[in-house]
C-alpha cells in the first residue's frame, strides 16, 4: 500500500478522523481546564458539528460505494452516521440537564471522551466490511459503553450494570470472535466481499458455517439486543445513567443493525434481482433464523414490558421489542425492507430519545423512575405529560405520529415479501405493546394528582430540546416524504 492509498483512505475517513481528533482534543482540554469543565460540552458539540459537516459533504460527493481495504464508504453507512451524530447531539443536550452526570462533574472529561470513543466505534462499525475490523470496532464501542454504563460509579446499580455489561459483552464478543476465526479458517479471509466470493463458489462444510454464523450472530444479537441475546439489556438500561441508556438504545443499536445488514447483505447474499429482492446462500437459512429471532424478540420484549414498574426498564424491554420490529425489515431480504429499517430507525431515534429524556427530567426531580411517581403528573406538569404521550403513542405506532410511518413501512416490506403470518404476529404484538405504553398514560392522566405528585418544571432549554424531538415526531407523522427520500437515496448507494 503506497501513499496514494493512504491519502485516499484519509480522504474517505474524514468523519472518523474528525471524531478521533476531537476525542483527543477533549482529553487535552480536560487536562488543561481541570477546574472548569463547562467548555467540554461545547467542544463535544463542535466535534459533532464538524463531523456532521464531513459526513454531509461526503454524502453529497459519494455516488457509488467506495471500497478500500477493510472499509466501504457508502451512503448507507453515512445515513447511520447522521443518525448517530443526531443522537449524540441530543445525548449531549440531555447530559447538560442530567443531575446524575452533574454529580460526577469532575469526570466530565472522561465522559465525553468515552462518548466520542463510542462514536468512533460506531462510525467504524458502520463503515467496516471486514470482520476483524468489525470486531475491533465493536469492542471499541463496547469498551467505551461499559465504562459509561458504570459512569455514576458510586451508585451501586450503575456498578452492577457495568459489571454485567462487560461480562456479558465479553462473552458475546468472544463468541463472535470464535465464529470469525472459523469463518477465517473456512474462507481464508475476513473480508466480507471475499467471504461472499468463497461462499458462492463452495458448497461444503455447511455445519461449521452454520455454527460460525450463529456465533457471529450472537455478537450482533447482543449489540442489537435481540432475544435470546438480550439479557443484558434491561439490567444495563436500568442501571446506567439515563443519558447513556438513551444513547445505547438508539445509536449503539443503530450501529449494530448496520453491522447486521453489512454482514448479511454483503457476506451471505447470493442473488439480488432487479426488483430489489435478495437471496442469501442456501447453506444457512438466515431468513428463517431471523424470523424466529425477530418474533421471539418482539414477543419477549412486549410481554415482559407489561410487568415493568420501572419506566427505564419498561423502555428497555420496549427497545427490545422494537429491535424485533426492526429485524423484520432485515429479514424480508429486500431493498424495501432496508428502506423500512432506515426509516424506522430515524423515527425510533426521535421517539425513544424523547421518552428517555422525559423520564430523565422526571427522575431528576423524583430520583426514581417508578411508574407510581407518574401518578397525576399530566396535571402538574402538562408539558412533559403531553410530550411523553406523543412519544409513547409514536412508539406504539399510531398515526399521526412518525412511529406509525415506521411501522407502516416495515409492514409494507413484509406484505410485499408475502410474509403475512409474520406480519400478523407483529401487529398483534403492537397491540400488546399498546397496553404498557398506555399504562404510563393512565398513571399520568387517569390518576388524580396528589400533593406528593412532583411538579416538574422544565427549563426553556429543556423545553426546546424536547420540542426539537416531539415536533418532528408529529410533523413526520403526516409529512414523511423527506425521510423516505433520505432513506431511499442512502440505499441507492448500498454497496454490493
Amino acid at each position, binding site marked *: 500500500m503506497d501513499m496514494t492509498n493512504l491519502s485516499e483512505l484519509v480522504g474517505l475517513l474524514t468523519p472518523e478522523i474528525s471524531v478521533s481528533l476531537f476525542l483527543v482534543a477533549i482529553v487535552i482540554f480536560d487536562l488543561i481546564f481541570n477546574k472548569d469543565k463547562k467548555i467540554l460540552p461545547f467542544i463535544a458539540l463542535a466535534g459533532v458539528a464538524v463531523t456532521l459537516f464531513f459526513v454531509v459533504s461526503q454524502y453529497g460527493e459519494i455516488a457509488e460505494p467506495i471500497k478500500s481495504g477493510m472499509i466501504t464508504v457508502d451512503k448507507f453507512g453515512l445515513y447511520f452516521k447522521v443518525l448517530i451524530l443526531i443522537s449524540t447531539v441530543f445525548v449531549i443536550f440531555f447530559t447538560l440537564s442530567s443531575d446524575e452526570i452533574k454529580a460526577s462533574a469532575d469526570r466530565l472529561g472522561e465522559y465525553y471522551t468515552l462518548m466520542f470513543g463510542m462514536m468512533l466505534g460506531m462510525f467504524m462499525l458502520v463503515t467496516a466490511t471486514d470482520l476483524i475490523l468489525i470486531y475491533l470496532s465493536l469492542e471499541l464501542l463496547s469498551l467505551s459503553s461499559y465504562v459509561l454504563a458504570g459512569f455514576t460509579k458510586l451508585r451501586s446499580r450503575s456498578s452492577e450494570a457495568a459489571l454485567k455489561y462487560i461480562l456479558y459483552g465479553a462473552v458475546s464478543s468472544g463468541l463472535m470472535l470464535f465464529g470469525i476465526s472459523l469463518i477465517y479458517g473456512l474462507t481464508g479471509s475476513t473480508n466480507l466481499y471475499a467471504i461472499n466470493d468463497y461462499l458462492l463458489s463452495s458448497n461444503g462444510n455447511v455445519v461449521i458455517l452454520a455454527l460460525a454464523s450463529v456465533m457471529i450472530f450472537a455478537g450482533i444479537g447482543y449489540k442489537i439486543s435481540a432475544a435470546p441475546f438480550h439479557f443484558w439489556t434491561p439490567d444495563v438500561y436500568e442501571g446506567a445513567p439515563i443519558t447513556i441508556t438513551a444513547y445505547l438504545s438508539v445509536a449503539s443499536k443503530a450501529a449494530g443493525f448496520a453491522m447486521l445488514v453489512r454482514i448479511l447483505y454483503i457476506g451471505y447474499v447470493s442473488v439480488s434481482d*432487479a*426488483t*430489489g429482492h435478495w437471496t442469501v446462500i442456501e447453506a444457512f437459512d438466515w431468513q428463517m433464523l431471523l424470523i424466529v429471532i425477530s418474533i421471539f424478540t418482539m414477543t419477549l420484549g412486549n410481554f415482559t414490558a407489561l410487568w415493568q414498574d420501572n419506566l427505564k426498564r419498561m423502555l428497555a424491554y420496549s427497545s427490545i421489542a422494537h429491535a424485533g420490529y426492526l429485524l423484520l425489515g432485515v429479514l424480508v431480504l429486500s*431493498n*424495501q425492507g432496508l*428502506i423500512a429499517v432506515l426509516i424506522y430507525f430515524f423515527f425510533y431515534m426521535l421517539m425513544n430519545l424523547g421518552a428517555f429524556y422525559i423520564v430523565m427530567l422526571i427522575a431528576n426531580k423524583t430520583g426514581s423512575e417508578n411508574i407510581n411517581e407518574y401518578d397525576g403528573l399530566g*396535571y402538574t406538569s402538562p408539558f412533559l405529560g403531553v410530550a411523553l*404521550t406523543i412519544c409513547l*403513542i409514536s412508539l406504539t405506532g*399510531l*398515526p*399521526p405520529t412518525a412511529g*406509525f410511518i415506521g411501522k*407502516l413501512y416495515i*409492514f*409494507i416490506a*413484509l*406484505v*410485499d415479501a*408475502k410474509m*403475512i403470518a409474520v*406480519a*400478523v404476529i407483529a*401487529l*398483534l404484538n*403492537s*397491540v400488546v405493546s*399498546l*397496553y404498557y405504553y*398506555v399504562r404510563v*398514560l*393512565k398513571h399520568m*392522566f*387517569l390518576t388524580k394528582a396528589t400533593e406528593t405528585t412532583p411538579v416538574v418544571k422544565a427549563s426553556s432549554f429543556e423545553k426546546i430540546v424536547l420540542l426539537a424531538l416531539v415536533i418532528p415526531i408529529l410533523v413526520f407523522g*403526516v*409529512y*414523511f*416524504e423527506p425521510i*423516505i*427520500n433520505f432513506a*431511499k437515496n442512502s440505499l*441507492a448507494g448500498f454497496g454490493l
Partner: protein
Amino acid sequence: MDGFPILSLLTFLPVLGMVIILFLKKEQEKEIKYTALIVTGLQVILAAILLGNYDYSMAGINDVNSFQFVEKFRWIEVTGLSWLGTLKVDYFMGVDGISVPMVLLTAIVSFIATISSWKIPKALKGYFALFLLLDTGMMGVFVSLDFFLFYVFWELMLLPMYFLIGIWGGPRKEYAAIKFFLYTLVGSVFMLLVMIGLYFSATETLADGTQAFTFNLLALMNQANYTATGILSPYNPENWRFVAYIALFVGFAIKVPMFPFHTWLPDAHVEAPTPISVILAGVLLKMGTYGLLRISYPIFPDVTRELMWGIALFGMINIVYGAFVALAQKDFKKLIAYSSVSHMGYVLLGMASLSSAGINGAVFQMFNHGTITAMLFLIVGVLYDRTHTRGLNDFGGLAATLPRYTGFVTVAFFAAIGLPSMSGFISEALVFVGAFGVETTRTLAMISTLGILLGAAYMLWTLQRVFFGKLNEKWADITDLDTRELIMFIPLTIIIIFLGVYPSFMLDIMSTSVNSLVEIVTTSFSNITVSGL
C-alpha cells in the same frame, strides 16, 4: 363552491378550535366552552352549506368525477424506489351520497354533545381540546377517499377517546377506556395489513403516464387497475382476497360493534361521560359500517357477494342477541348500549342484502340510529345528573314529576322501537324490505323481525319501570328539563320526526350513490375466482 376547501375546513376546524383552547388559560372556562360551541356550530353551518350545494344526481362511489367538493393533492411522493417505482399518498377528500349523511350526523351530534358537555366537572380545557380532536378524527374518516388518509383519521380518534373515557368517565373508567382502546386497535391493525396488501395489488396511472401503486380508494375499486401478481389482485390465482376481506371486516366489525366483538361497547358506554357516550353511539359506531360500505364493498365485491349470508347472519345475531341482552339489563345506560348493538344489527342486515333498499335503509339507519341513540344517551345523562343512579329499579313514576322530560323520552323510545312517523321506522322498514327481497337473506330477515318485538318489549318495560307506576318518593322533588337541556333535545326530536315524515330529505341524498354502489357490488369483479388460504 369551486375551489373552496369546505371539506378540509370541516375536518380541521376543530383542530383550529383545539389550538385556540390550548392557548386559553385553564381558568377561562367560559371562553373555552364557547370556543368549542362556536367551532362545532360552525361545523353544523358548514355541513348545511355543503348540503345546500350538494348535487343529488351525482353518484360518487368509484368515480372521481362524480364526487363532490373534491380536494386532491399529492401529499407524499417518492420516486425511484427500486421496483416500487413511485410511492405516493394523496390528500384526497370528497363526498358522495354515502358520506354526506355521515358528515351531517357528525356535525349535528358533535354540536349537541358540546352543549351536553357544558357541565363537565373538571379539566375543561383538556376535555374540550380532546373533544375537538376527536371531532376532527371522525369527520376525517367520513370524507377521506384515500385509504392512508382514512386510516390516519381512523386511528386519530383512538387516543382522545381513550382519555375522554378514562379521565372523565365513571367508576370503572380505566378498564373501559383501555378495553375500548385495545379492541379497536386490534381491529385497525388488521385493517392496516389489508391496506398494505391492497397497496401492492393495484396501480394507478399518474399524470406523467407512469404506473404507481396507490392508496387511492377509487383506483382500488377498478378491477382494471390490478396487477397480475398482486397479493390481493383478482388476477392472481393465489390471491388472498378472501382472507383480506375477513381481516378488514373484523376491523370494521369491532367498531360496529358486531357480535361477538361487541363487549367493549357496554363498558365504554356505561363508563363514558354522557356527551362521550353520545358521540360514541352517535358517530363512532357508524365508522365501522361506513367503512364496510366505503371500502370493503366496492373493493371486494366478489368476496362480498360470497359472504353476504354471513354478514346478514351476524346482523341477525346482533339484532336478536342485543335485544335479548338488553332485556335483562338493570342499568339504564347499559340497556341503551345493548339496544345500540341491536340497532346496528339492522345496518348490517340491510347492507348484507346488497340491494338498493337494504343499503339505503342501512345508511339511513346509520343516520337515524345516530340521532336516536344520541338522544337516548342524553336522556340517561339527564336523569343521572339529577339522581346519580342508573338502576332501572331505582325509579318509578317519574312521568308525574317530569312531564316534559317524559315527553321527550317517549318520543325517543318510540323512535327506537321503530314507530312509524319517526325516522327509525323508515330505515328499519327499508332494511327489511331489502333483506327480505333477496333470497339469500330472506330467512334471516324473517328471524330478525323478532328484534322488532323484543325492542318494543325492553323499551316499554323501561318506560314503565322508570316513568310509570307509583312515584318513588326519593325523587319527588327533582326538576324538569332546563333550557340548556331543551336545546339538546328539541333539535334531535325535530330531526327524528321530520325524517320520519319526510324521509326523502335524506334518501334523495344517498339513493343515487347507493344505487351505484349496488350496481358495483353486484356486478364488478366478476369472472374471477376467489381462493381461500
